[in-house]
């Protein structure tokens, strides 16, 4: 008895080893059914097992998400730079395409009007506010530009040169209230002076027309050549009649004209050299 008490641990271990070896031998065979205890334990533990697996899965997903976050940030940064670069290149292409279209239109206009001596010029500055209806072009006396030379685009009259330097010139647009441009309604041939409408920046007006003139909205207004700026034998489009209003006393009419040239989008112009003082 004392022997068993003294060697209790070793004896227990030996017994366990034998017991488990028996278990291994028994359970290693192809068992079809499980014991009641196995089933009970598995059934009890299964929900907790599922919950543990779920928690581990979620934790792993979160861990993977955190791990990927750095890589995602780097990728995002690289992609953003690439997008900016592509966007810049795309803009360059778009600009080139639009410039090509505009220049083609100007060239077409030039080839259609071979009797006119035209200088192609690029707008290098423009009035920033609605008060300033002026532009600066990159052509000056060196290129043959003179004071009061008319400036046109393929769409119509643009303005006249009011200041000229060796390599640049300032052009007063027809939308400026200070500019007075001799014009006429194309269909009815009624003439007047077109100037910038101070009340409606960007629009033109023909003021002080006789009350008995019949002018319809939609009629074309062209240069008449009477002011000595634009050629008389080659009229340029100025705009389209928007509306006609009579003064309160009923004596005169004022015609509102929408310019045919889109001044905000204008980038290249043509300077006419056929009307020179010399």
């Amino acid at each position, binding site marked *: 008895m004392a022997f068993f008490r003294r060697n209790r641990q070793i004896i227990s271990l030996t017994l366990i080893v034998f017991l488990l070896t028996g278990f291994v031998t028994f*359970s290693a065979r192809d068992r079809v059914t499980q014991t009641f205890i196995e089933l009970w334990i598995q059934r009890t533990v299964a929900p907790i097992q599922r919950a543990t697996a779920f*928690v*581990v899965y979620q934790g792993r997903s979160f861990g993977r998400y955190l791990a990927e976050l750095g890589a995602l940030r780097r990728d995002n940064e690289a992609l953003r730079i690439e997008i900016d670069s592509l966007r810049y290149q795309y803009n360059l292409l778009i600009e080139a395409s639009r410039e090509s279209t505009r220049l083609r239109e100007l060239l077409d206009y030039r080839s259609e009007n071979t009797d006119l001596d035209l200088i192609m010029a690029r707008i290098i500055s423009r009035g920033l506010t609605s008060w300033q209806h002026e532009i600066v072009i990159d052509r000056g006396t060196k290129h043959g530009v003179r004071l009061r030379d008319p400036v046109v685009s393929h769409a119509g009259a643009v303005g006249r040169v009011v200041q000229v330097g060796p390599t640049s010139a300032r052009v007063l647009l027809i939308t400026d209230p200070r500019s007075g441009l001799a014009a006429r309604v194309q269909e009815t041939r009624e003439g007047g002076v077109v100037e910038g409408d101070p009340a409606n920046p960007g629009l033109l007006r023909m003021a002080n027309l006789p009350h008995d003139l019949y002018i319809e909205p939609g009629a074309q207004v062209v240069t008449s050549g009477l002011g000595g700026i634009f050629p008389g034998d080659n009229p340029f489009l100025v705009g389209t009649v928007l509306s006609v209003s009579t003064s309160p006393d009923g004596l005169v009419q004022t015609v509102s004209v929408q310019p045919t040239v889109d001044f905000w989008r204008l980038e290249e112009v043509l300077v006419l050299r056929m009307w020179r003082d010399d």
Partner: protein
Amino acid sequence: MIKRRLFYASVIVGVVLLQGALSPYIVVYGGTVNLPAILVVCLALHHGAERGMYLGLVTGLLADVVIGGSIGFMALPLAIIGFTAGQLGTHLSKDAFVVPVIAGVLSVVFFELSLFILYRLAYGFFLVAAFRDGFIARMLLNGALMPLAIRLANRVIPRPELELR
């Protein structure tokens, strides 16, 4: 007493469940973590050979039932590991850094060897590839985890009764 047993029971169940759910994802150089072995070594170092043996037996049986395999495949090595680690903890200072590492490494070596031999005895073949592939990594990984586990166990596990030493 009942509280303590409940605590151990929940720790054992938790570790076995975690082993089933977590171990496929903790792979370092082909080596997987053996949480039941680590737990048994920790408990045995604290509680001595006899209690370590029983805790190993219970942990192993539960792992056999829950994780799969034949009954006794994990229980047998874990019971022996528990006993041996308990003896080691009784005769050596478990607080020394080297003891838990050696205990961890040896437990994994023994565990793997036991399974290797048990498979041969039970099924008649050696699972050479299962034993060989990642064996060193498993040994080192579990050995390296052991000091951490011991440190955690020192904080969590209630102090054992002296007479059980």
